[in-house]
């Protein structure tokens, strides 16, 4: 994420319009939001994510759940079917809309779980020196392994369902979070105020949750977004290999159907639209996290 940071920084060309207001009066959160809202790429990305979230929530109102067979098989995009139809005559637009719902649910649930585990272990490892060796080795070892084949094995063993996908993706996504949170928390635990908290007799739990956790919170925000965007790709990958929930639609499953039925070589619309949906969500999430990082960093805030 960091190598790309200057994109958003240099794209946010708006001069310091609020120069008359003394920035010192603002809380850090408001200051970050002000800087963020001046970044066009960040705002557009945030808007795209919000629109997709609305589509996900309102899916039942927007389209009928695609099921059964239709008469118009493999029709290219038209007024009746803006995204065309698949090999069984089902509307691709409806599939993409319902897919948004499942893909986003899985991405957010998996990233939430991964963040819970990742942050807990990361803070614990940074604070408790005795655990650090074990956790760090575990993280290094897990990050070195090819994750997708491992996810495939576990998902196949448990049997495909939405819950399976959430658990499997979370199970293999937390090491990345732990790595980032731990390194950040390590620098915090060395600060004098943590010693002060210990000196006045604070419990370990209190120090970790009230003093270390808030200090790593910004990193957690970035991690949530990036883990979720990676979860979108993992979910799509597993569904594409046939490990998606058989009862529901996801973007990866639309591609899987196109691949299995051979529609892939006839009907570009069966694969193009879900691909665009995946790309839009992942790019937006990446740009939002870059813009947030820039907005939070006084050096790139351009004040």
């Amino acid at each position: 994420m960091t190598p790309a940071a200057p994109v958003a920084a240099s794209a946010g060309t708006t001069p310091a319009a609020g120069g008359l207001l003394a920035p010192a009066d603002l809380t850090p959160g408001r200051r970050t939001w002000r800087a963020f809202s001046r970044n066009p790429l960040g705002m557009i990305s945030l808007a795209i994510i919000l629109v997709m979230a609305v589509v996900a929530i309102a899916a039942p109102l927007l389209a009928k759940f695609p099921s059964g067979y239709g008469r118009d098989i493999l029709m290219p995009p038209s007024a009746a079917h803006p995204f065309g139809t698949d090999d069984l005559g089902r509307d691709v637009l409806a599939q993409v809309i319902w897919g948004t719902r499942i893909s986003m649910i899985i991405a957010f649930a998996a990233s939430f779980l991964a963040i819970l585990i990742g942050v807990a272990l990361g803070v614990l490892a940074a604070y408790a020196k005795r655990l650090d060796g074990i956790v760090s080795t575990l993280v290094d070892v897990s990050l070195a392994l090819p994750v997708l084949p491992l996810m495939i094995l576990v998902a196949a063993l448990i049997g495909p369902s939405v819950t399976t996908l959430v658990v499997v993706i979370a199970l293999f996504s937390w090491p990345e979070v732990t790595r980032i949170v731990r390194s950040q928390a390590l620098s915090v635990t060395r600060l004098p105020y943590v010693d002060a908290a210990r000196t006045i007799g604070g419990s370990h739990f209190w120090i970790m949750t009230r003093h270390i956790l808030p200090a790593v919170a910004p990193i957690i925000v970035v991690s949530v977004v990036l883990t979720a965007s990676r979860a979108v790709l993992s979910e799509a990958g597993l569904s594409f290999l046939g490990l998606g929930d058989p009862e529901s639609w996801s973007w990866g499953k639309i591609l899987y159907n196109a691949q299995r039925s051979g529609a892939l070589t006839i009907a570009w619309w069966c694969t193009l639209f879900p691909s665009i949906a995946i790309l839009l969500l992942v790019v937006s999430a990446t740009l939002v996290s870059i813009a947030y990082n820039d907005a939070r960093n006084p050096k790139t805030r351009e004040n």
Partner: protein
Amino acid sequence: MHLTGYFLQRLLRGLVTFWFAVTVTFFLVRLLPGDPVSAVASPSMTEEIRQRQLEVYGLDRPLLAQYFAYLGQLVQGNLGISFLSSQPVSKILMERLPWTLLLTGTALVVTVLLGIPLGVLAATRARGWVDQIVQVSGVIGQSLFVPSIGIFLLYTLGLLAGWFPIGGAVKSDLTGFARIASIAHHLVLPCLTLVMAQLAGYVLTLRATLIEALGEEYCDLARAKGTPESKVIWKHALRNALLPTTTLIGLQIGFLVGGAVLTETIYAYPGVGRAIFEAVGQLDFPVLQGAFVLLAATVVIANLVTDMAYGLLDPRVRAG
């Protein structure tokens, strides 16, 4: 001296990683719901047949005994028997492995060969429009879904343009040079898919490290001595900027292997990844487990190689 210590440490870490991979998969396979007992023996079997079936696969023994037996077999290169084809898993997968190695190896080399000039281009024109384009495409490139790239290339270059074959790895009944040409021809699209999937990461990393290196004092010194800028970039700064890129290769290999699974699925490329896809459809757990163990070993070895290269390239490691 220090180099030997460094290598030994890396070797140990590789062994621990591989042991971890093997152990985790063994217990996952035995303890999760879709366990091998229900795969080889159904409740509808008579007790006698069921028992015999379990004995054949060694599933009637205690878990730890099974674990050590599995490790022992693994050391001898035995990965178990496929549930479906009743052939040894190692035999099935070893036939496939060369194709996966060819695909991922070529993709890695092409990525690095393209990534270095692109990274240099972006870094030396930092903040210019070339740099902007490289950065925006970098962010998009890192967000691409591998099957989306694969399907796009298959449709445009394979089907519409008709330049490249869209499935398989080689035309049968060819020998000699014609066979090699056919292999190369079939390799283009899957390889290009993987290159597009990982190029962005390399370019962005090299760009960032090269910009940093070009601002270092030794580059200023070289310039002050009258060294031409091109030589400062290619001889002085790039050498140092390539070190983090070497580390990135190690980090990206796991992702590359995952990408190969998806790519081989699209192009019906006869590698380990395609074997995984086929095994998923038939719930052939020994093949899935064996494939993961084999790919984990490949990744661990590849990581060792990049670690060694890093040790040889970086004088700081050599000197300790």
